[in-house]
């Protein structure tokens, strides 16, 4: 066995030993599992189609790499007499083709079709080929009901005989000279291709899409595993080192819980979306203060400068709630509809009196309200001492040019 054939993927190589001319047929026979003589007969037979067999063989010669040299198996030539036999047959075919007058007109479509099939075959891996073969077997068995190699031989010989017979019959009738040129070769080629390639093509498309899904899934799995391991390891190391500081540990734990939850369970928010911005802002606050920010979002929006200002205002509101309310649980509700974006930041902490202007509370009213108004929105603060606070931010959406 040539050294190039690995047990798992049988790539197509031109064999060095047992070759008649360039090892194309023997390589193909090794690769496909078809008897080499049949393949050679096939190449010679297709010469009939305007010298197509020669072109096909030449194409393989150019495209298919030669097997690596194996010192143990000397590169020998196959039986000399076989070569002579096929050469004679080839010349005969060429002469016959000339006689019948099958021009090279159908050479290119046929060449394209076979090249396409060959490329698909190349891209496939072993299990796919097994599937295709069984599909082709099933397909041909439907028509012929016989094992594969014999089936192919029968089909080829049958087509050949039909071709020769019809050709010689029509050659004697001058009148149909033109019609024959167009319809007969096309019909034969199409029929042949459909018989052989049809089942393969159908299965191919199914296999390709199944393959793609499987590949994406695998990729995601690997990526996630990498991220998770890396990040969790880092966090656990940090926790070990700061074990004496419970607040710090709690912060680290909360942060990694949030990250892990984000990877595992949340659809990735695109970087430029309102959702991502709000989540980032709440993550910031959660990192700095011992609070949990519960974010509920309905709808989605792109980020315009006005929306950015809204997000900053949200950040201010959440920060203030974290700093002053005394409530460890804050909720942020975002509703983005076609007409406006509304955000409600709520806490059930101690609240404050709107009339009293506390030094630090000044920031909330002025920066939040003023900022929102500057961008065409509004802010409303509902609070009273002892009953929590709710900050309501609204931003009407200017109809944009894009969707």
């Amino acid at each position, binding site marked *: 066995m040539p050294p190039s054939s690995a047990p798992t993927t049988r790539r197509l190589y031109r064999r060095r030993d047992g070759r008649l001319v360039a090892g194309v047929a023997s390589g193909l026979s090794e690769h496909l599992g078809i008897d080499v003589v049949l393949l050679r007969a096939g190449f010679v037979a297709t010469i009939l189609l305007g010298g197509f067999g020669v072109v096909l063989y030449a194409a393989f010669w150019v495209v298919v790499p030669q097997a690596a040299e194996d010192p143990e198996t000397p590169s020998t030539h196959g039986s000399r007499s076989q070569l002579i036999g096929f050469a004679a047959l080839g010349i005969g075919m060429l002469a016959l083709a000339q006689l019948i007058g099958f021009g090279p007109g159908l050479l290119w479509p046929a060449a394209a079709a076979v090249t396409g099939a060959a490329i698909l075959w190349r891209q496939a891996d072993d299990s796919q080929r097994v599937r295709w073969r069984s599909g082709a077997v099933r397909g041909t068995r439907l028509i012929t009901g016989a094992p594969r190699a014999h089936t192919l031989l029968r089909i080829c010989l049958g087509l050949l005989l039909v071709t020769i017979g019809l050709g010689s019959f029509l050659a004697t009738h001058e009148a149909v000279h033109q019609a024959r040129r167009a319809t007969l070769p096309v019909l034969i080629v199409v029929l042949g291709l459909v018989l052989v390639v049809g089942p393969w093509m159908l299965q191919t498309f199914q296999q390709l899409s199944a393959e793609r899904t499987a590949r994406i899934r695998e990729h995601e799995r690997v990526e996630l595993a990498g991220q998770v391991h890396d990040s969790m390891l880092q966090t656990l190391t940090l926790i070990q080192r700061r074990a004496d500081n419970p607040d710090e540990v709690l912060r680290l734990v909360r942060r990694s819980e949030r990250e892990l*939850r984000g990877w595992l369970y949340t*659809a990735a928010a695109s970087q430029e979306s309102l959702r991502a911005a709000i989540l980032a802002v709440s993550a910031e606050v959660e990192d700095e203060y011992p609070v949990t920010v519960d974010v509920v979002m309905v709808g989605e929006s792109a980020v315009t400068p006005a929306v950015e200002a809204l997000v900053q205002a949200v950040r201010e509101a959440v920060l203030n709630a974290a700093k002053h309310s005394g409530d460890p649980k804050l*909720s942020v509700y975002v509703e983005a509809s076609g007409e406006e974006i509304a955000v409600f930041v709520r806490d059930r902490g101690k609240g404050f009196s709107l009339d009293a202007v506390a030094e630090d509370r000044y920031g909330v009213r002025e920066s939040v309200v003023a900022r929102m108004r500057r961008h065409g929105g509004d802010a409303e603060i509902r609070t009273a001492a002892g009953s929590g606070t709710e900050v309501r931010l609204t931003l009407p959406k200017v109809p944009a040019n894009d969707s």
Partner: protein
Amino acid sequence: MTSPQPRTRVVLVDDHSLVRAGVRAELSSRLDIVGEAEDVSDAITCILRTTPDVVLLDVHLPGGTGDVVIRAVHATAPETRFLALSVSDAEDDVIRVIRAGARGYVTKTIGGDELADAIDRVSAGDAVFSPRLAGFVLDAFTGGTPPEPERESDLDVLTPREREVLRMIARGYTYRETAAELFVSIKTVETHVSSVLRKLQLSNRRELTRWASERRLLP
């Protein structure tokens, strides 16, 4: 004095023993934990044997997901009530388990008292809506494509009142606070929420049915 209410009988279904131990510790003063189970088949046998009032059910279990348990139990014991308790707050997990028949969904970050309240509420026949679940519902019913006019039924659309109630819950208001805000009774709020739950379970809106066939890309 009125005679003490019989304590609610609860079965815990979760594949993490630490979680079960924690929940048991927090709840045993208020409720009776009559059974525990670790995977789908154990859960079904345990529930059918002990006939609890409420089942605390994790969404992800060895051998399947929570909705399998719900359907299997409801086939023989439809009066069993399920409250989903999970780490995940992914939309499709939540909606899938609610559509299978759960009457509420809470995440494991919930406190012990809140959890006991939630169990009591489910046991009484009401629904437990976390702010996030309310958000999902609003998203599913107001976003996306409206159902085709010929096939649209009452189940596919939320009434304005229901939408208002959901918005309040999504904003973090309790039922009591919602009732005060909308000037209605708590019972009215509970009725609206139950109606929304029913629509969530029965509606044929595309946003809700697609999770029946789709699987997440991650394992």
